[in-house]
């Protein structure tokens, strides 16, 4: 059996190794992704995003229990930050998911951002495809703890769950652009805390405003109060995700297509950007130049970034 067949058959070691190759940008990984691609498109992808410490890992852990009870296999990709200074990372999301470690129906992978901004790593979308090809029914993607502007997950997942907690800020936070706009489902976790109802009300106002701008037939975001460590509200969250999935698939099948096209565009752009950058860099190096050398020229004011890029584009892309 070759590596493709082993991944498609769900062999854990092979999946794990292919994911590593993708993350490490080993050139042969591209070929593997190409051959796996025809096997993709069956998994349902749910993204969990929100600020650090709101309970994303605990919710992923809890919702995975429900999917397992429903007989679904689950893939989990959990992103944590890379240190901008040392390049190292401590990946600790698994701590909350220990109950699944010995379940062969759950595959968990921790990912470091490796300098990528946007809430995911550069490799995450390709890794989703590998787990999809490996037959996981549901793929849960947990973003790095985000601020206000890391909205990549909305283009990667079918359903985006935005997790918040009571008292994260006054109601003006809720009308800012960015992260608050991407939730298909809003979770107010740690709902036992004071101010939970107020947070729910603020979210309802936000959603109502959004709904008025739209001309009907659009998805109305759901709000779910949870207390993940006590398993409270998880069934409601599960139902809300299912409702959104039904909305995408059945009643508005063009919506399903829309999401698929959005994902395809992201994958295409990612691959194009990486491969073009690499190809151009190789050519530059073949000519005996390098990024370091150009950086020195810029610092010494012999040239500037804009002129150099213009020159590179003219000489390499003709």
């Amino acid at each position, binding site marked *: 059996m070759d590596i493709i067949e082993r991944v498609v058959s769900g062999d854990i*070691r092979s999946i794990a190794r292919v994911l590593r190759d993708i993350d490490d940008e080993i050139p042969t990984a591209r070929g593997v992704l190409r051959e796996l691609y025809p096997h993709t498109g069956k998994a349902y992808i749910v993204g969990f995003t929100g600020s650090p410490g709101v309970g994303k890992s605990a919710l992923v852990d809890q919702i995975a229990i429900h999917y397992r009870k429903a007989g679904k296999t689950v893939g989990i990709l959990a992103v944590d930050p890379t*240190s901008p200074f040392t390049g190292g990372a401590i990946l*600790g999301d698994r701590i909350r998911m220990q109950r699944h470690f010995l379940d062969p129906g759950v595959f*968990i992978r921790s990912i470091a951002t490796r300098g990528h901004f946007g809430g995911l790593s550069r490799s995450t979308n390709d890794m989703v495809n590998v787990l999809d090809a490996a037959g996981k029914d549901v793929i849960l993607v947990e973003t790095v703890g985000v601020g206000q502007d890391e909205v990549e997950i909305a283009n990667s997942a079918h359903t985006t769950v935005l997790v918040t907690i009571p008292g994260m800020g006054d109601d003006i936070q809720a009308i800012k652009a960015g992260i608050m706009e991407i939730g298909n489902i809003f979770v107010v976790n740690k709902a036992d805390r004071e101010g939970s109802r107020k947070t729910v009300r603020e979210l309802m106002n936000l959603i109502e405003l959004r709904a008025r701008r739209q001309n009907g037939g659009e998805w109305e975001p759901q709000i779910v109060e949870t207390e993940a460590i006590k398993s409270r509200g998880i069934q409601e969250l599960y139902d809300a995700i299912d409702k959104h999935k039904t909305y995408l698939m059945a009643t508005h099948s063009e919506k399903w297509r829309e999401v698929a096209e959005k994902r395809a565009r992201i994958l295409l752009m990612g691959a194009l950007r990486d491969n073009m950058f690499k190809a151009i860099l190789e050519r530059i190096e073949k000519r005996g130049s390098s990024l370091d050398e150009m950086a020195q020229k810029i610092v010494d004011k012999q040239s500037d970034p804009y002129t150099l890029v213009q020159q590179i584009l003219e000489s390499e892309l003709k």
Partner: protein
Amino acid sequence: MENARKLRILVAKPGLDGHDRGARVIARAFRDAGHEVIYTGCHQTPEQIVSTAIQEDVDMIGLSILSGAHTYSFPKVIDLLKENNALDISVVGGGIFPLEDIPKLKGIGIKEIFEPGAKLTDIIEWVGANIKPREGALQKHGYH
């Protein structure tokens, strides 16, 4: 472009003792050395440790243990790696060990043992010299 390869290291505490200060310090030292550390906390069974190591595709497992249960958990981890055709993942130990146990542990395939007093810089240096990111899945001959 900058080489994207990183060492991936699992830091785990097998068994019942709940003193993970040492494990946290070493996890942080590995992070500061530029490695990716998967940290799973206390009370891990050998089965959980090996399952995590394989799913996370780590290059090394660092087992931290203070309870004296290493004579059970260390051989068990090695056996489970063998069962899963994953002996290419190196295993090292840190903590408190009776002197006479150390050759035995090395005999069953534990790559190195770090005792109390081992300097962080020495551990980091040892890892840098002895643990390498594994080959790509397609390059590796004889796998499976």
